[in-house]
């Protein structure tokens, strides 16, 4: 294949597409869609983080969004008028990864002996506990500002330039959503790179081994406990970084952004894309982040075109179509849209 013979050609092509994408989307459909892309990139980071836990190590986690919440609130508390703290972005993001990773271990340690549905229930509880804490930690001491959330969070800034304001560049005013896009693309690429390296490492092989058979993994000399905790911690730290980016991007966080539905959504991205297969997970994240928006904006015009009027409220139709899409994909592509070669072989055998 050509792309294999000259890998740099592929890389240049991908770089050009990634660089031009916001312009194509923004000029063609409006800047609101660039914002959708920004969110899609955050979701890709989340999906890759959850993929480590669910896809590689085979540990079903239904509370993954809690780590996103922890990263987001950490950013919000350390860079907003709420406590009067204004830490630099580049101090908060690594701290967010670390703190979320520690919470990952906190979740992992008591659940080491659990698998499958039992683990799912405990992690689901963990996700809800974190959200409920965020909702209620406004009294007696106001830490999280409760359901109102934390507003006026400092935007992410690079070298003192906040990404929220348009940037003059070659006589062109790049809006904030474009700047965030480029930052998120870069960080998503870093996370993809880390994921690929992990997959191909001793740790990655150990994760796969414990996913397949814990007893056999032990007989091969794998420290199952540590390897599991590491999966929880690594996955959580990706979520923590994405959460920090989310807080700086939105400049507002509240507990309702971190509901169970969000955890389920990220899990759907992993499963639908192709569990354990990094390109598939990226595709799943992109599609499931963009699809609901397409359905939201597309449902009304399509109905007008077909029936002359809007018969069903687009908002309710959206989830219906979304659910239908998920069912169809799982029926016809049970290993995911873009599964790894092994999974494909297994499910077609």
């Amino acid at each position, binding site marked *: 294949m050509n792309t294999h013979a000259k890998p740099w050609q592929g890389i240049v092509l991908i770089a050009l597409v990634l660089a031009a994408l916001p312009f194509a989307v923004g000029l063609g459909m409006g800047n609101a869609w660039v914002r959708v892309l920004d969110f899609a990139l955050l979701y890709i980071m989340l999906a890759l983080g959850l993929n480590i836990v669910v896809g590689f190590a085979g540990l079903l986690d239904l509370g993954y969004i809690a780590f996103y919440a922890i990263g987001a609130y950490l950013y919000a508390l350390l860079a907003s008028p709420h406590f009067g703290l204004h830490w630099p972005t580049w101090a908060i993001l690594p701290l967010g990864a670390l703190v979320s990773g520690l919470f990952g271990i906190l979740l992992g340690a008591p659940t080491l002996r659990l698998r499958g549905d039992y683990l799912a229930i405990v992690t689901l509880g963990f996700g809800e506990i974190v959200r409920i804490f965020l909702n209620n930690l406004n009294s007696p001491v106001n830490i999280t500002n409760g359901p109102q959330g934390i507003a006026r969070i400092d935007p992410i800034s690079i070298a003192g330039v906040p990404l929220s304001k348009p940037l003059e560049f070659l006589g062109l005013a790049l809006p904030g959503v474009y700047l965030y896009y480029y930052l998120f693309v870069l960080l998503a690429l870093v996370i993809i790179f880390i994921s690929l390296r992990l997959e191909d490492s*001793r740790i990655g*092989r*150990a994760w*796969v*081994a414990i996913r*397949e*058979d814990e*007893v*056999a*993994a*032990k*007989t*091969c*000399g*794998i*420290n*199952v406990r540590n390897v599991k905790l590491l999966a929880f911690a690594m996955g959580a730290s990706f979520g923590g970084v994405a959460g920090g980016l989310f807080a700086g991007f939105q400049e507002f966080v509240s507990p309702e952004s971190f509901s169970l539905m969000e955890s389920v959504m990220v899990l759907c991205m992993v499963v639908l894309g192709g569990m354990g297969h990094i390109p598939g997970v990226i595709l799943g994240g992109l599609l499931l982040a963009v699809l609901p928006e397409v359905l939201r904006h597309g449902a009304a015009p399509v109905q007008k075109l077909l029936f002359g009027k809007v018969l069903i409220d687009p908002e309710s139709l959206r989830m219906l179509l979304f659910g239908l899409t998920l069912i169809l994909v799982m029926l016809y592509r049970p290993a995911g849209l873009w599964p790894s070669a*092994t*999974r494909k*072989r*297994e499910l077609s*055998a």
Partner: protein
Amino acid sequence: MLEVINLEVYYGGIAAVKGISFAVEKGEMVALIGANGAGKTSTLKALARMLPSAGSIRFCGEEIAAVPSHRLIGQGLGMVPEGRGVFARLSVAENLAMGAYSRRGDAQIDGDLARVYEMLPRLKERNKQLAGTLSGGEQQMLALGRALLGRPSFLLLDEPSMGLAPLMVQKVFETIQAVAASGVTILLVEQNAKLALETASRGYVMEGGRITLADSAANLLADPRVRQAYLGE
């Protein structure tokens, strides 16, 4: 080489192994036989440190009761788990590679792999196939081959004949004998008492969590109690 003194295993409040003592010398193949629920597998799992237990387990003169299970293969104590203990969604070659996981950077892994393939040619033919798609006997061979890649000096085998067709059982046991002949000491847990005693040099009979008989394999095979209880006579 392996010395077990007063080993006890409890599940909750229920004793599965009630204080047994036995020993396996270097180069021996010893069978541990008994009926279902006699405590054989519990004993083996305790030796592999996968179940908490009381009592002393000395391996090569060192107490291993406090050693975590994943460290044992590094000390030369390998195990082939019960049933289909293979990584089903990994290929045969990947399974074997996992067997050498504890030997990071060991230059002799390739040579050992070649020897395992030589001993188990079926695995070589099928090295790209997913382990879960192999037949039961082939999976048992794969589990054995994978354990050998950890370079054990001592192997714990848990019910290698379980769920296999008679012809396949024969092949698996021929392989086990070849492994023993290559100098690996073996403790074999088996329900198939006849086969186990024909293969091993010595045997222990377990009943209700205790060792009730200990003798050479030939004597046990001739013992009327064994013949009546385990050989269906």
